[in-house]
């Protein structure tokens, strides 16, 4: 019996580890090819973190401090699906981001932009039975980084997903539509053309709430299962 429980990504789905325009990859990427592992229990099991209790404020990054953070309030909502469109119910979704001025609440971030005492920038949510998750936050700012002359990261929110197995683990970044910085960002552009657009959230008037916040939709697709082998 050949066990391949989860489908493998195709060449056009993910970045190449060595993407020299993103300079840090040069010193931090393997040059040998990965050894392809058949799927044993080690790969098809994984942490569910089902016992992690989420506080009510964890998916509302505007309610984690004494007062509301500065910035443009937004709703980020979507579904966690597999490649067959089946919801990954119960999936833990973790996010982190900089504040509206482009500064992370992190000692290593020395960007000359103000910290916001009312913004911490980390959140968690658990997908419901339909795979649906929702965050309320503020739109992160662009920030400079030293990759090349006049390098600026487009506004983005970091996302971390576990999915059902060790094999489905994914960390990614969500971007905003029509951001002029996308065309210049080597991290975004490390993803092959034709796939990188999947990392852009869609502005959604139906998610937008009058007098309150703009809505963005971002669906996340994790690896799907192969058809069950005949036994």
């Amino acid at each position, binding site marked *: 019996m050949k066990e391949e429980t989860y489908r493998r990504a195709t060449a056009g789905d993910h970045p190449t580890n060595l993407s020299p325009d993103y300079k840090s990859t040069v010193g931090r990427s393997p040059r040998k090819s990965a050894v392809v592992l058949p799927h044993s229990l080690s790969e098809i099991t994984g942490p569910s973190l089902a016992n992690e209790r989420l506080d009510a404020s964890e998916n509302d990054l505007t309610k984690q401090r004494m007062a509301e953070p500065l910035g443009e309030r937004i709703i980020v909502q979507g579904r966690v699906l597999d490649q067959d469109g089946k919801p990954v119910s119960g999936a833990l979704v973790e996010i982190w981001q900089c504040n509206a001025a482009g500064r992370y609440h992190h000692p290593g971030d020395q960007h000359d932009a103000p910290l916001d005492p009312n913004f911490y920038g*980390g959140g968690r949510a658990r997908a419901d039975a339909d795979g649906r998750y929702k965050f309320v936050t503020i739109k992160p700012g662009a920030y400079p980084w030293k990759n090349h002359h006049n390098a600026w990261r487009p506004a983005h929110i970091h996302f971390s997903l576990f999915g059902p197995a060790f094999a489905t683990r994914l960390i990614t970044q969500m971007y905003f539509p029509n951001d002029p910085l996308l065309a210049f960002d080597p991290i975004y552009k490390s993803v092959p053309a034709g796939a990188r657009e999947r990392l852009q959230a869609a502005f959604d008037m139906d998610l937008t709430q009058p007098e309150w916040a703009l809505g963005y939709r971002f669906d996340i697709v994790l690896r799907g299962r192969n058809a069950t082998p005949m036994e």
Partner: protein
Amino acid sequence: MSHALTPSQTIGPFYWGTIVNAYHADLAPTGVAGERIEVVLKLHDVDGAVVPDGVFEIWQANSHGRYNHPEDRRNLPLDAGFEGYGRAGTFTDGTSRFTTVKPGRVPWPAGGLQAPHINVSIFARGVLNRLATRLYFDGDPALAEDPVLKLVEPGRRDTLIAKRDGNGTWLLPIHLGGPNETVFFDV
């Protein structure tokens, strides 16, 4: 209908204080069965320099060789309080330290058992895709028959085998590249 996979991106340098504070590196509270072990992973770049802004995640079976997951339907004990998952950022010296129990053996789809091992994920600034590897235990008699090690060219198998230091701590350097590049797996 097939949905297109969401592409991977780097974790970046600024995860501390958000996701990494959320979990402990101590996987096995008092009462969990098995041999208590301490594991230190140390992350190096292609030039051998330590990587102080990476993240290690580990996933393992309990001492009976059972994964705490619905796909593992074997009739083996689960330990209360032991999920088998850990996460820790690297410190200035490139290391992350976990305390856990030595995992038992888990089966191989084509038959037989795998040697005890811990599944490891690596994330860092400059790492665009999650890198997956395994930690095996030096001196374990089951290493010789492990089906995954047999997939690896003999000269590189050592990159997967942790060695014990004088205090009994299991140490495994992970090299992202260079002459000692760790074997990474396409899982």
